[in-house]
């Protein structure tokens, strides 16, 4: 009974960590795409905001990796680790855009957007894999007749 409760708690922790990472990454994508759409009227503060969000999303995703039990071969973990790499790249590209202007600014921010989009994809795939796994685990067991 106590073991079941611990398991339930740990499953909830993974689910919350995944949800948190997904939301942070979705917000990052939204921030960068809106910043990029403003083009000439983009302020440095907005780019700084994007860099900060990229860092937060990467941290949040690392926490989700930590919350998830299992080896590096685990599907959910693999997707999350791929997302971390892309979020780090998004932060790097956003930082490059901060230091540049004109075409170089848009190129760097465009790369950050592509990284952000790809990382959201990885995380939503991790969420789907986790949900499928939970659904299978909690599906009613057929009685032998």
């Amino acid at each position, binding site marked *: 009974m106590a073991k079941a409760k611990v398991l339930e708690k740990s499953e909830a922790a993974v689910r919350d960590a995944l949800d948190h990472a997904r939301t942070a990454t*979705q917000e990052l*994508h*939204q921030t960068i*795409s809106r910043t*990029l*759409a403003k083009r000439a009227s983009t302020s440095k503060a907005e780019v700084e905001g994007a860099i900060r969000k990229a860092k937060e999303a990467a941290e949040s995703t690392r926490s989700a990796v930590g919350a998830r039990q299992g080896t590096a071969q685990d599907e959910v973990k693999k997707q999350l680790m791929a997302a971390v790499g892309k979020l780090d790249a998004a932060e790097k590209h956003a930082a490059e855009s901060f230091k540049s202007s004109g075409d170089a600014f*848009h190129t760097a921010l*465009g790369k950050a*957007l*592509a990284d952000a*989009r*790809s990382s*959201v*994809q990885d995380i*939503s*795939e991790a*969420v*789907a894999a986790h*949900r*499928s796994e939970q*659904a299978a685990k909690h599906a009613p067991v057929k009685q032998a007749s």
Partner: protein
Amino acid sequence: MRNFVSVVFDTSAKAYDGLHELWNLDREGDVTVHGTAVVHRDGLGRLVVDTDQTDPPLATAVGVGVGALLGALAGPAGAAVGAGGGAAIGAAVGGTAGFVADINRAEVESEGRFETGFDVLPGQHAIIADVSEDWTTPIDERMRRLGGTVHRRSRDAIRDEALFGPDYPYYQYMYPYEYNPGGYLYP
């Protein structure tokens, strides 16, 4: 199972209600939504992606894209709507803002051929979604309740078709979160 789903509605309001319900299903854990777009067919017969940008001129063109995907989802049967002339010329927001694809004649013809299978009449709206679902009932039920017509195909089947290889830009126009268009409204 990973599927592409399209849902056709008669009005913009219903389409956005449908989009909201789809993301609600995701929040409830019944399905996982990887990306969505809302499109409509304008008075000139073109399929246009609704974006959340406030400035319509920022809308950029998607080459072989939305119309072809919608056609592939609907399958080979259906009314002929805007073949060739109805090719997707719409807005792209997603992977690479400012992406503009060249639409050459062959692509437009291919897309038109696919699009003949899909019935989005001028003034109608459709949701396109990339989802993971263990069963189809949740989406089917909620969308039917809103008056939507659901079409669905597996991502693998779509990817096996010539136009939709791994380089097809699904994510150029699909938002990975719920969105509402900002500055302009549709009839």
